[in-house]
């Protein structure tokens, strides 16, 4: 029984040789440059490694240290969860709406608006503009306006005060989420055949929202799933915005995330074993959410 199954598997694999030939270039490079570094890093998570001496195997010590003794870890964990659970869905919904709206606009205006909305992702360092807006003194634009309108009487230290800083960074992250996921969904809209809309109109679709909900979104489920994964990865991996706007470390670690904590271990303390262990924890966390997302999309993606 087992033997026949093995033979049939081998037979199947032999019959699919063309598929494997097509996969070969990508997956060869992928195993060398992505899978191998990730696996080595995961192994390093179980060692003590300072980048000078040979890694020393320490079992689960790193994980125990992080979960039991490291106070900053739990602050970073909490911040990351709040951050991801707010910016992930909000950024995603905003992204879908913007892509949908832009798709309703025709001609050169469409391309220009797409460019402007995508520009922050293209520039990479666009969040410096927020530094000017949220400057902690009276010269910051936000403080200036709020004081002129008598809403507040003295400037708020937006990026230094632990009560505000995470909120400000979340706002920036939502704004910056119009990246490749946004472009993919927008391009996805273009793949929907016009005849579907004509048929839907005959079947009683009355306005563009019904059209979006009943016709477009189900048809572009693969792109929606792609964008959801990009959003997931983006909202859990945030660190550059935090470091650049709130400082490193931020006041009372109020803007610390798991990844800023990884960077702290890897690039400042040179404890690569600990950094890798943290990366593994973050990976597991995202994996769980990935399973949830896959469930939501599973019937629609055709996988």
């Amino acid at each position: 029984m087992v033997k026949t199954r093995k033979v049939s598997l081998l037979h199947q694999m032999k019959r699919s040789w063309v598929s494997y030939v097509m996969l070969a270039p990508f997956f060869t490079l992928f195993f060398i440059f992505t899978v191998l570094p990730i696996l080595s890093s995961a192994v390093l998570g179980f060692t003590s490694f300072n980048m000078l001496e040979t890694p020393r195997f320490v079992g689960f010590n790193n994980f125990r240290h992080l979960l039991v003794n490291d106070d900053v870890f739990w602050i970073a964990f909490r911040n990351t969860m709040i951050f991801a659970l707010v910016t992930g869905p909000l950024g995603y919904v905003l992204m879908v709406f913007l892509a949908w709206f832009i798709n309703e606009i025709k001609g050169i205006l469409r391309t220009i608006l797409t460019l402007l909305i995508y520009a922050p992702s293209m520039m990479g360092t666009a969040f410096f503009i927020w530094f000017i807006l949220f400057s902690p003194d009276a010269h910051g634009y936000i403080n200036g306006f709020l004081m002129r309108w008598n809403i507040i009487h003295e400037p708020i230290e937006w990026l230094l005060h632990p009560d505000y800083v995470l909120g400000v960074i979340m706002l920036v992250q939502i704004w910056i989420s119009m990246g490749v996921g946004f472009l993919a969904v927008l391009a996805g809209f273009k793949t929907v055949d016009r005849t579907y809309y004509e048929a839907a109109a005959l079947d009683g679709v009355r306005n563009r929202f019904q059209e979006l909900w009943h016709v477009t979104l189900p048809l572009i489920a693969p792109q929606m799933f792609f964008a959801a994964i990009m959003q997931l990865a983006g909202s859990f991996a945030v660190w550059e915005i935090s470091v650049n706007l709130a400082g490193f470390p931020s006041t009372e670690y109020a803007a610390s995330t798991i990844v800023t904590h990884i960077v702290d271990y890897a690039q400042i303390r040179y404890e690569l074993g600990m950094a890798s262990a943290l990366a593994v924890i973050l990976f597991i966390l995202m994996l769980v959410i990935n399973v949830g997302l896959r469930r939501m999309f599973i019937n629609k993606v055709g996988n």
Partner: protein
Amino acid sequence: MTQSAMRKMKWRKLKSGDRLNRGIGGDLLVVVFVGAFAAFSSLPLVFAIMHSFKPLSELFLFPPRFFVMEPTLANYVGLFQLSANMWVPFNRYLFNSLFITFAGSFGQIIVASLAAYPLAKHVFPGRIALNQLVVFALLFSTTVLMVPSYVIMTYLGLVDTHLAIILPAMQRTIGLFLMVSFMYQVPTDTIEAARIDGCNEFGILWRIVMPVVKPATMTMLIFAFQELWRSTGDGFIFTENLKTLPVAFAQIQAGGVARAGVFAAATVIMMIPPIILFFFAQHKIIETMAYSGVKG
């Protein structure tokens, strides 16, 4: 009978107008919402352009001002002069960046398309596992991969070569994942029909699948190009002759505060090629619809 007559009437109404279920009020709302968001998103771009035209006195003004008061071309002239007098000729950096960007982007598109087609449309052992592996790889934090990557690059003898940038670019999981997403939508019937007609798998990919997924290739091109164009070598390139344009501009910035204006000009110049490509690629994406819209 009456029902079919009604359907017919509706159908005629549909055919007469190009705009299904669209009202002027909704259009207005759409333009206002997108316009407001776009205006706000354009701030960094506009600010960078403003900055590049500011004389030194305005660059360090406190409080900082958004708009330029006395625009000057001095920064661009300064950039031109600095570039003309570099130790390694400026063209060398330009060539390196162009080479890495083009080889990496096109390499990625070719390699990812080849792999995405079987992942989306073939049935073979290991398909689901590979599809999930690609997504998993996207979820692992890249911040801890530098040391293992460096060891691998050294072992392969790729350190201090352009291949250390180009080869990893060709296996970017984002590109493959994007490609697979779009290829799911290619009708299986069309592929089957081509197969019956005797077309081989490479021919099907090239002649049937690729034209349909043009929006995906164009999106990938935008993304890969902009990433590689910004590349500073990822810490793998040490020989001055092999370094890229962003590295050359960073050296200008390292020249001190007096070079801030020149650096602002360099930032704007660096943005021009990805923006031109963006317009070209988006134009191609919009064009695609015109074709697939005709066939039923």
